[in-house]
């Protein structure tokens, strides 16, 4: 006969000893097991795509998402490889990233800073993302960039055009491939002076947040440098809808140019309404009244329809560019989604590939190693010609496109034409330029 030796006290004692034994290795190795925030442990690594899927910039966000998904496919070796075939760095071989398959989670920023932060926070804490890529809206980008710095995650900004993103709010963990308001001014002003003369009086309507303010400042400075005067600058709330009460004061202000520092749905509404108010038919000071939209996008142009014809603006990239990177990307994107990509899509696609490439070159997901790989990185073949990721402020430098609404479009996507490819040298500036001063990158923060 056998008697059971199990007693309550005995079981507890054994359990405690066993528990301590199991816990022991992790207690001693916790530091080295997770050297940095969200270090990927399994056979996958997760990217976070945080874009506006609702709100005034929603359509840009949805196009960004299309491009981000395409980038993940290409990194994992699916599809035709897109720009990986033309990218000057050959570190990515289409087998995932450091032996891991790339997966992604998406979030909706709602074009609001608080919602964007909440969504990014959840991606970092719950989904364990290693990198966040997204925009649009500089307010959102700056908020999420700050959060990523604190958490020790890399932020590859999407469409953000405010000088502050890589100016006074620059961060060690934030990188911007997109151009900025200063560059728009530097590229646009000479073209505007040539087209409309140097004796012009401008009236600005400006979206009332960081991007609008810096764009207004940049365009004002650049146009005043070529001889223009600024009659008035007026701030308008984001998502105003009906801009008529802001447009009526323009009529008799003495201005002969209206600069619309608006984006997305706001820009579509303000330019459409400005045209309805007969602004483009007006003759003021003996000159034809003109409208300028410093930051253009294909999706906005599509939304504005007829109103956009002949209107000047600037862009980071356009699908009509004649270079191998652009062609490869337009082919992949166009065949998958049936439409050419927008410039916000391109910047997100490129940023996702650039991050992956930096990881591959660094041989590590550690943010400090990735930052080092991205800083002062020279590359080509991504659709913008030779490009430089400046280490001092994490801003990319490349040629800027001056665009114009096409007078006689031949098809649905043929709405903008490239007027000039402004060379990189003309839009470069020092990292401590007054419009960008006051910020410091800070230190690399590996987190955990």
């Amino acid at each position, binding site marked *: 006969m056998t008697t059971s030796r199990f007693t309550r006290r005995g079981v507890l004692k054994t359990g405690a000893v066993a528990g301590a034994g199991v816990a022991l290795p992790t207690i001693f190795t916790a530091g080295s097991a997770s050297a940095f925030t969200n270090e990927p442990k399994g056979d996958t690594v997760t990217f976070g795509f945080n874009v506006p*899927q*609702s*709100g*005034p910039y*929603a*359509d840009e*966000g*949805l196009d960004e998402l299309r491009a981000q998904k395409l980038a993940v496919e290409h990194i994992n070796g699916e599809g035709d490889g897109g720009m990986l075939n033309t990218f000057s760095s050959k570190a990515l071989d289409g087998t995932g990233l450091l032996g891991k398959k790339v997966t992604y989670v998406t979030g909706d920023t709602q074009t609001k800073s608080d919602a964007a932060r909440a969504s990014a926070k959840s991606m970092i804490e719950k989904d364990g993302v290693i990198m966040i890529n997204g925009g649009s809206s500089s307010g959102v980008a700056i908020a999420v960039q700050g959060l990523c710095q604190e958490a020790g995650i890399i932020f590859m900004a999407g469409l953000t055009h405010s000088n502050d993103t890589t100016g006074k709010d620059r961060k060690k963990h934030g990188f911007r491939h997109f151009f900025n308001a200063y560059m728009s001014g530097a590229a646009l002003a000479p073209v505007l002076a040539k087209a409309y003369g140097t004796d012009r009086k401008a009236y600005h309507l400006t979206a009332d947040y960081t991007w609008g303010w810096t764009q207004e400042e940049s365009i004002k400075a650049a146009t005043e440098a070529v001889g223009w005067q600024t009659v*008035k600058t*007026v701030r308008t*709330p984001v*998502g105003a*809808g*009906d801009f*008529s*009460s*802001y447009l*009526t*004061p323009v*009529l*008799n*202000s003495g201005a002969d140019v209206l600069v619309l520092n608006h984006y997305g*749905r706001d820009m*579509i*509404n303000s330019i*459409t*309404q400005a045209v*309805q*108010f*007969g602004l483009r*038919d*007006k*003759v003021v000071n003996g000159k034809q009244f003109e409208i300028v939209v410093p930051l253009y996008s294909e*999706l906005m142009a*599509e*939304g*504005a*329809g*007829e*109103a956009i014809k002949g209107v000047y603006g600037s862009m980071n990239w356009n*699908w009509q560019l004649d270079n191998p990177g652009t062609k490869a990307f*337009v*082919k992949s994107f*166009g*065949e998958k989604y049936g*439409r*050419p990509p927008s410039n916000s899509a391109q910047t997100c696609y490129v940023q996702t590939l650039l991050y992956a490439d930096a990881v591959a070159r660094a041989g590590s997901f550690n943010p400090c190693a990735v930052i080092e790989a991205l800083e002062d990185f020279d590359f080509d073949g991504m659709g913008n010609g030779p490009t430089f990721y400046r280490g001092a402020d994490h801003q990319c430098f490349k040629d800027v496109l001056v665009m114009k609404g096409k007078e006689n479009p*031949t*098809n649905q*996507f*043929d709405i903008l034409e490239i007027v000039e490819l402004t060379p990189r040298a003309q839009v470069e500036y020092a990292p401590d330029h007054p419009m960008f001063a006051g910020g410091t990158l800070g230190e690399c923060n590996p987190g955990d």
Partner: protein
Amino acid sequence: MDQIILQFINGLDKGSAYALIALGLTLIFGTLGVVNFAHGTLFMLGAFCAVVMQRILTLSAITIDPTQKDFLGRPLEVKTPYVELWFGHDIGQLLIDWAVPLSLLLAIPFMALVGWVMERGIIKHFYKRPHADQILVTFGLAIVIQEIVKQIFGANPIPVPAPKAFSGSLDFGVLLGFDPNVIVYPYWRLVYFLFSSVILAAVFAFLRYTTFGMVVRAGMADRETVGILGINIDKRFTIMFAIAAIVAGVAGAMYAPINSPNYHMGMDFLVLSFVVVVVGGMGSLPGAVLAGYLLGILESFASMNVIKDALPGIDQIIIYLTAIVVLLLRPRGLLGKRGVMED
């Protein structure tokens, strides 16, 4: 002086949109006692009727033209609208050009149906529930409709131009003895103002001079007594809900050329139209119209540069500031009945 006249016209124009939406809202509150947070969405659905009409009229036959290339270098698919194929180029183009006014033919039956389904399907179950429940269910409904529209039409605004005949601006100043080009106002916005005046007048006439309207007004005053008299007031209230939906819908359809339809436009108007209703007096139809125009005009004047320079940001808060003042001095609203929302 020219600025004042211009902002006054602009205020009337803005006010006409507010008045139209607020009228529908207060009609529903006055008759059914329901606070309908989905009313802005009805306006948005109306605007999308214009989009749908435009899409129907531009439904096209596709032929491949090997001589032209698309953005990927493939032979271009050339689209020719069926209306052009059927009625000839000129008539086809004319129909497409007049898509917005024609969309009223679609908006009226469609919005009546939407209103009927909403009232019979959901809202009638909430008549006896607290206002908070009504707000929650109608707000939820608004979000659902909004997301459905976003799924179908995308998030970007869709341009729906006014007929070419109304695309320019009227030189108002010349008519008033000013220099040319000093006071100009877009034709379509003037059309919208006239259109809303006609709709407002029609609704008032309908309620005032028809037996149906008389019963509804009686029901608004004392629902129980009207019921005791053997009148099926519920059926009439359902019809009133449908009428309110039609008013919001046609207001939205005609507004499409002014503000390109997008899935969110209803929400943009919602809060504003509630303020209009509250300022005018909950349940008061003339109050809603008066407050609509008043707030439209105030908002326009607050946007004048002289005023904004003196009081920065006033243009964005003027409506709410007015609402606070009115509610403090006269809690029932400008033309509100004694006792309504005062308990």
